[in-house]
């Protein structure tokens, strides 16, 4: 890994490079996976690509804006963030736009999904709270307000209903508590309640039970609950080493549902083959390593928690999505960052990257007085300046 860093001066530059490559792959894949649907439905094969590119543009602006001011001044505005996101989520429940039996979007100028923003808010609030505790070497307990906030937001998102996002919101929060360190007793209690909840939910709604059956043996349910998983496996399996080639995968021809959104990775595996899949996973690993590096080099614990939370946001969703696509976990509506079509998700992910760059910039600006050593290249350049 370290060799790669020779080509850029800081982890944030490397991060931007990784994100750029992922965005590029995403654009290619979204077009290939959506042109059939777009052509038939809207008579414009480029419809989804155009919208994706627009979201890219907005996201990059958001990224730059997020990288600019001191992140510490953003994340400490607890009430503003909390009130803002609650207002948006309430608004969705009342004046949101219905689609596919759910109400997830709201139109304020542009159409977007506030639940995606909720992820970001929870990370910021948790990082702010946990960072302060860590700085003061206080004991951390789950019985604190950020988790309560996450649960409240998760509940609001569940009402839409959007189970996947709700789990991500609460899950991210808990993950950050775990990384910050909580008593073992609480971990065990949480595990117990977690298993209870999962079991309860699995059997509470019959469609979830069926989903789990279909997950365990998709081939037995290939015309019903296992259809998506089976189609996804067929798409991946027919890819081979180098794939069928751009545009030549057949799964998007109404065989694989959600080919350009949740199952975009299956289309990528089909058309770019094992090589493409490997590249995507390696890029996410790189993103993870760089994110963690930035987190560790953060000037304060809040920065570290924010960095690790944002990294977990992207990497966690990636793992969740890919695991779903390859049939390891049940089908949930978690998108693959930068690869799946979805405007708000893309913008939020780019803002997350912007915040990571923000943290990285603070650590660099502190590098002279702090213990952080400049990287080899920077050192080299400094020498040349002298």
């Amino acid at each position, binding site marked *: 890994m370290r060799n790669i860093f020779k080509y850029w001066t800081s982890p944030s530059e490397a991060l931007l490079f990784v994100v750029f490559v992922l965005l590029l792959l995403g654009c290619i894949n979204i077009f290939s996976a959506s042109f059939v649907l777009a052509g038939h439905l809207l008579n414009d094969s480029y419809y989804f690509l155009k919208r994706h590119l627009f979201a890219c543009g907005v996201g990059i602006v958001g990224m730059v804006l997020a990288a600019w001011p001191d992140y510490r001044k953003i994340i400490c505005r607890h009430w503003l963030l909390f009130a803002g996101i609650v207002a948006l989520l309430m608004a969705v429940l009342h004046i949101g736009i219905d689609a596919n039996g759910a109400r997830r979007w709201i139109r304020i100028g542009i159409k977007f999904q506030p639940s995606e923003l909720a992820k970001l808010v929870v990370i910021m609030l948790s990082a702010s709270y946990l960072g302060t505790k860590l700085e003061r070497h206080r004991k951390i307990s789950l019985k604190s307000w950020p988790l309560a906030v996450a649960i409240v937001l998760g509940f609001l998102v569940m009402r839409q209903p959007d189970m996947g996002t709700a789990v991500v919101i609460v899950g991210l929060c808990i993950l950050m508590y775990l990384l910050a360190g909580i008593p073992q007793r609480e971990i065990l209690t949480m595990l117990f309640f977690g298993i209870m909840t999962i079991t309860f939910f699995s059997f509470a709604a019959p469609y979830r039970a069926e989903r789990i059956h279909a997950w365990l043996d998709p081939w037995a349910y290939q015309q019903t609950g296992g259809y998506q998983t089976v189609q996804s496996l067929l798409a991946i399996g027919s890819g081979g080493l180098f794939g069928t080639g751009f545009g030549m995968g057949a799964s998007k021809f109404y*065989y694989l549902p959600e080919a350009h959104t949740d199952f975009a990775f299956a289309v990528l595996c089909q058309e770019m083959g094992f090589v493409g899949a490997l590249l995507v996973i390696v890029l996410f690993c790189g993103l993870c390593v760089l994110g963690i590096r930035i987190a560790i080099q953060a000037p304060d614990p809040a920065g570290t928690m924010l960095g690790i939370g944002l990294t977990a946001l992207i990497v966690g969703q990636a793992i969740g999505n890919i695991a779903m696509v390859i049939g390891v976990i049940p089908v949930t509506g978690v998108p693959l960052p930068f690869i799946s079509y979805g405007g708000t998700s893309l913008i939020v992910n780019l803002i997350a990257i912007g915040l990571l760059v923000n943290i990285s910039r603070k650590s660099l600006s502190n590098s002279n007085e*702090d213990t952080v050593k400049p990287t080899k290249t920077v050192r080299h350049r400094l020498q040349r300046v002298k």
Partner: protein
Amino acid sequence: MLGKKSRVRRHIAWFMSIVMFLAVAMIGRIAWIQFVNGDKLLAKARSQLGDYKEIQTPRGTIYDRTGRELAVSLMAKSLYASPDEINQDPQWIAKLLEPVLKMPVAAIKARLMAGGSFVWLRRTIDAELAEKVQKIIQENKVKGLHFLEESKRYYPNDDLAAHVLGFVGTDDVGLNGIETTLDRQIKGRLDRRRIDTDSYGMPIFESVFSFTQKNQNKSVYLTIDSTIQFIVEESLDQAMAATKAQTGTIIIMNPKTGEILAMACRPNYNPNEFYNYKPQSWKNRAVSILYEPGSTFKTVIAAAALQEGVVTPEEKFIDRGYVEVSGRKIQNWSRESYGRISFEDVIKQSINTSFVQLGLKLGAERMNRYAKLFGFGKTTDIELPGEESGILFDTEKMRDSDVATMAIGQSIAVTPLQLLTAVSAIANDGVLMRPYIIKEIVNADGKSETVTSPQPVRQVVTKETAQKLIHLLENVITQGGGKKAIVDGYHFAGKTGTAQKASSTDAGYQAGKYIASFVGFGPTDNPQLAALIILDSPQGIYYGGQIAAPVFRQVMTQVVRYLNIPPNSNSWNVPNRPKPVAKTETKKAETKIIIKPGKGQVVVPDVKGLTIREASALLTKHGLSLIPKGSGLAVRQSIPVNTIAEQGTEIIVVFEQL
């Protein structure tokens, strides 16, 4: 900053390890899916993608000789349902389809619920409707509705050459005309082909293109020229309207090759909707009806007699107006007596009595032999279905009265095509050609498979005989009963015919029913066109020379112009031809026939050898006017000597310096 050994850093290390482990596990899983299960999954994906479809390749196109489309096949979509696959409420689907298919909901529903895997909903629907149905299928995610491509025949010119082309029934079966003859060759094939489709059964990838006509069938080029055909159809329509004939037929042939250039019949039909017409109107009368040819058959008798040396053009006949053979009295059409008359004039005036004498001179054997040599009594083998062979006498059983009637073209039965073919042989220096209508069959790759070349059948009469007869037949048009067939600027030869119509029920003739016809060819120095016009059972005037000859003139005038045939240099350009008179007779100087001009009519005097001034004076004296051409002494005049003409008729006289 966090301390290097802080708990958080340790946790983060754990986190990263777990992420890396999961990444490796996922890569492993993908590799497993792609490399271990890959072949199995690929096969499964292929099988759900693939669909065996029966694809109808379109029927071959029929072109005219110039490459214009006469019959084309378009692929039309036919909607069918696989009731077993239907995934939604049939009532609902039926309601959705009702406005598009314009079929009752109950009918659609019944078919959707029929069970099984195949039931037609609607066959060969427009592309526009098909698209609407497709949209319904997609928007409502309906499964179990599919399209099949079927070939639909389309005749772009509607009823043009309908009898030649024929038509195609359901399931691509040729039912008439060329469509029947070449059914095997041009029929679209049913290919069972594997195609890739999307989840709704629409073809994707290359399969989209497999519906295009890339392995189209053989196409056919006919000898028909659609412009000539159009001229013929127009003229025939006019003639039918003017004469109120029951049926009509026109054929145009190239006498040198036997190529049919046009062939039209009435009653007509539109092959695009043949089912709306009576089956009787589908009949190609040019080849599949038999009629008694009447005087047009005299061409054959004359050819035989000249060839056998039984007669010379100058030979004199005595006509008493009737002749009795074996107790049967045969009269001239005009019921007039012509007295002593040369064979040349016998043909010009189509004198029955003289032909009876000639027939008796020839005898049954020779007459029948020549009839057969000219192709009568046998099909011509043209590539059209339903051709009749005609009826001739059995030589041994022929009585004199049979010989007599056959000599004037009665009591034998021929097809229009046989007659035209026989007359064409005279035009073609005595060589009988096999008539044909299929010029070329071209393979799908554009290479021609078979090219029909002109096929001489036999030399029926010698070139000299043919030339002699051509000259005699030319006179029929310029001086005899076929004047109305004159094609301005061209020398044509021809023969009129007015035959009694044989009864279809008994051996006799239908009272008051005649078949008027005219057969001719030209230009006589290099015959390129031969045509036969038949008008069956006209109302009012029924003489071939009166009603069929003008049609010949009308058709040929347009065709020679279309074909750019150069006019004959020494032709008579007659702007004001003498109006036809009931009786046009010629009188040679030595004959003692008394000419009785009617009121307002004059006998045309001979101006040969006179100067312009003298000729003008002479004609004025007779009440005629002169249009001089050239200078010197008169050598030719547009209306022959001793012809009866209306007073005031203009006569063109050619003067030459001698």
